[in-house]
């Protein structure tokens, strides 16, 4: 009975193949569309990285002229943002790499595990090391150093902190999303 089970599976598989042999399945427009897609396919990560790099290098430096902060703070902020953009790109690169689609599943699991570890390290070590000093400096610049005379520093800092908290939550949400996706793939591959 148990052997029959596999024989039955084989028969069912043969039926599937036979049925497919009688079908055209692919057509000219399907192949044409697939070929055309290569040039158009720019990943979401790349779009974010290019957009962020553009912001850091062109738009952000203009904020210096608002006199809300010092030149040193503007330059350091710009450097930190560029560092984050480059680090994000480097962490994502192996996953975005086209070869991943052609690699064996064990390699896919390895790449995903490395991606997850780097992303976690980024959250636990790099983010606090960069953001805490930068945040304190930002508060000093906005609330005291470059605040309009007579203004209450806390009224200037609270919006800054609120914006920072919202940004942090959005960033954390994307972090969890990326890490969970990688974890799911690793789990699917390794649980067997």
């Amino acid at each position, binding site marked *: 009975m148990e052997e029959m*089970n596999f024989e039955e599976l084989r028969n*069912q*598989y043969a039926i599937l193949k036979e*049925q497919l042999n009688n079908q055209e399945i692919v057509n000219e427009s399907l192949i044409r569309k697939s070929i055309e897609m290569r040039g158009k396919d720019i990943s979401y990560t790349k779009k974010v990285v290019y957009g962020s790099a553009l912001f850091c290098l062109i738009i952000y430096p203009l904020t210096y002229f608002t006199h809300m902060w010092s030149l040193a703070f503007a330059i350091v902020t710009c450097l930190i943002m560029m560092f984050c953009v480059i680090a994000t790109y480097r962490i994502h690169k192996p996953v975005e790499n*086209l070869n991943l689609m052609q690699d064996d599943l064990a390699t896919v699991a390895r790449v995903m595990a490395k991606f997850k570890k780097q992303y976690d390290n980024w959250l636990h070590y790099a983010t606090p090391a960069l953001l805490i000093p930068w945040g304190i400096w930002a508060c000093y610049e906005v609330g005291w150093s470059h605040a309009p005379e007579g203004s209450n520093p806390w009224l200037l800092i609270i919006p800054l902190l609120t914006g920072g908290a919202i940004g942090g939550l959005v960033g954390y949400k994307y972090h969890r999303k990326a890490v969970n996706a990688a974890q799911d793939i690793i789990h699917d591959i390794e649980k067997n």
Partner: protein
Amino acid sequence: MKIQEEQFARLVREHKNTIYTVCYMFSQDEEEVNDLFQETLINMWKGIDGFREESKISTWIYRVALNTCLLQERKKKKEVKTVPLSMDINFFEDNDANSSQVRQLHERIGKLGLVDRAIVMMWLEDMSYDEIGAVMGISAQNVGVKLFRIKEQLKKIHNS
């Protein structure tokens, strides 16, 4: 079409059944099969220049199709307007005897984990342990051990 594109089209036509089977086994409806099939073709076309003939082309196609299904499972987004496949049958909905048999196969294999599903499909495809190992990144011996476990699992599923 350029020569390379014509070769690609020929390759797709030669292996359409394999690609369809992989996509079908990882899908829940015909629309999902369409999406995965097209995504697989896009990934094949992207990677065809990098194919170095270190492995058989059928092994490479299996890898691309499997990885597409596995990774696409997580994306669940439709960036591409899918061109429908040219099929007269719908294994998910048709009620003739053959489609019912195929559906039963889909249900049985669908109860396995994603990797086990891939291994059993390649075994049904009569691929050698070496070829299966090349797709999975494990040794042929390991494939044998895994297949034994999968068969035990299938027996349990069958008897339950």
